[in-house]
């Protein structure tokens, strides 16, 4: 029999092993932690745990599941190349064809290299790294080839002139200011982001609340298994959950 916890504010229900969860709207601190983002995880570590907050165990389970869903190849399966194979023509080609690495290894290499460059930056690189990282708060890609471009933050100052015109008389006042050549040039010269830095940021706070679904049938997850924290829609799915996935999450 799982441990029972009755949440304050929750509808009082006298059944063992589960409880209604009251969602009090969107709270970014309750959102699952992206394991890639250690900074965010650390920032949250000190805060008080709430009823909705995920345990470390659940976070690991979610990260593992997402990795599984994103996987391109099954490392357990090796499918040999059939038929005649053209021989490598150069040393480079031989080396590259023999690699058995997965994308994860290449991306880890890229991140390690960036971390190294940021730890011991040349003056020019340091300035650039800071600039890019304020833009999206993730590691930046320093470029060996291009000098640090200066992307001027967009300001409203250019529109001062047109704002003096009565807006009712001028359609132009609704139009954004013309493009600034230097600004465009800086944008065009900006180096690519690293793969990790290219990912979209989490949704902004104040957006629609995090949705929770029944782990078994996909309907709303209004009650929570107190053994592992997983959401289910009702008793029937709770039974199914305990018989199947509950232990997997543990």
């Amino acid at each position: 029999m799982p441990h029972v916890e009755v949440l304050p504010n929750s509808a009082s229900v006298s059944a063992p092993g589960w409880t209604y969860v009251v969602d009090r709207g969107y709270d970014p601190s309750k959102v699952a932690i992206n394991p890639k983002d250690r900074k965010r995880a650390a920032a949250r570590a000190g805060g008080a745990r709430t009823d909705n907050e995920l345990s470390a165990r659940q976070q690991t389970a979610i990260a593992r599941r997402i990795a599984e869903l994103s996987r391109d190849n099954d490392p357990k399966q090796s499918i040999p190349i059939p038929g005649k194979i053209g021989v490598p023509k150069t040393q480079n080609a031989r080396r590259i064809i023999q690699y058995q690495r997965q994308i994860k290894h290449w991306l880890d290499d890229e991140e390690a290299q960036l971390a190294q460059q940021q730890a011991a930056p040349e003056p020019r690189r340091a300035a650039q790294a800071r600039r890019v990282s304020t833009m999206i708060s993730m590691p930046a890609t320093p470029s060996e080839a291009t000098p640090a471009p200066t992307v001027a933050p967009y300001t409203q100052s250019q529109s001062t002139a047109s704002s003096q015109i009565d807006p009712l008389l001028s359609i132009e006042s609704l139009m954004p200011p013309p493009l600034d050549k230097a600004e465009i040039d800086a944008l065009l010269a900006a180096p690519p982001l690293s793969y990790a830095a290219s990912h979209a940021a989490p949704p902004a706070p104040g957006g629609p609340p995090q949705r929770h679904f029944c782990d078994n049938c996909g309907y709303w997850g209004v009650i929570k298994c107190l053994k592992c924290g997983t959401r289910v829609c009702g008793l029937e799915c709770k039974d199914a959950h305990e018989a199947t996935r509950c232990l997997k999450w543990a």
Partner: protein
Amino acid sequence: MPPKGSKKGHPAAPKQTLVLDNGAYTLKAGLVPGGASAPPTYADCTVIPNCIARSTRDKRTYIASQLSSCKDFGELAFRRPVERGFIVNWEAEKAIWEHEFLQEGEGLRCDPKETNLVLGEKPNCPRELQRNCDEIVFEQFEFAGYYRAIGATLNAYNSPDNSSLSALPQECLLVIDTSYSDTTILPLYNGQLLQSAVRRLTIGGKLLTNYLKELSSLRHYNMMEETYLLNEIKEAVSFVAPSIQQFSKDLDRTWKGRVGDKRPLDSSIVLDYVLPDYERSSHGYARPHDPVKFRMRKGLQPQQGPREDLLPLGNERFAVPELLFSPTDIGVQEAGLPEAIMQSLNSLPEMLKAAMFANIVVVGGNALIPGFVERLESELRMLVPSQYLLNVKKAEDPIKHTWLGAARFASQPELLKEVLVSKAEYDENGSTWLVKKFAGGSK
């Protein structure tokens, strides 16, 4: 504009160009003749599975296009050279390229020494992988000339009405590439990618298929080895709910109810997918849910005659593609596509931002999911300042559109000449130089 090539030392342009959009799921490939000819069309593009598949049942291995001769997709295992959109395993990719373009046979054949290669890649490719690619292209395949570009950017050479051939790229174009590996957001200015504004969502066709596979296995049968089938089912039944409000309504209509308060499943949404048995049928099909037939599935089927295995599909139909709009539903900490587009464009000057909203094109296989483009447009409309024009277009053929842009670019010798690197130039300067050159750093 693509990076300028050096003015000297260009070879006489060889006769033809192999244009290759090297996707994780399929290759999109076609030969573009060098001389004057009719502009390329979708019909010039061949779609080839980019995989090596092995069946434990018939003990056969299928390379790429050979998959079309496969009849039994049960427990078919796949080896894919491209991971997260980037060519990672060259042993397999080389075998596939050799099989599809080089070896004796029908279809697309070329002699690399007499052919240029225009190769499309995904944005934010690690440099070491770019270098591997360049080395293989010149040292192993020995193409005469080569241009590697971010494939999606060449969509700028598709004219807005998709008819005429233009030497000038579209001035401002926002490409949304929602494909097998992921979904990327690429703002283009005169055909050049604004790198700092590129954004990517982890959610792509692969993740959606794997998610449907996981859900079906949990709720009905163990189908964890049936990737091919689940992909087919996903393509047949998925739709994107028109709004989050309608999503909630559909979720209600497909719920079984509680103990003591059972609800009938709404057969205007719930489907039964008749699974192929791989004896009489290689492919399944969907039909409206029938509770009687569905109960028969549970041991009540006639001993004689054909029996049916049914996979019911309710909320899976729309909750799976919903991940493109709400990745946090499974714990991926990324904004949904409309908000991610705002993240990308908010980093640009207001004028550019306005121009991008007015010219959005959606490419990639997920654009084919019914309701996808409509939902994207209606959610964007709520986020985009109301005085700005919003125009979201689904490419006529989302799968081949990037290839078509690349082919239209490659069919214009004066454009191609600017960017092609010859084998001689590579041999002289090496792969480090080439990676920098294609990144726009060496002029």
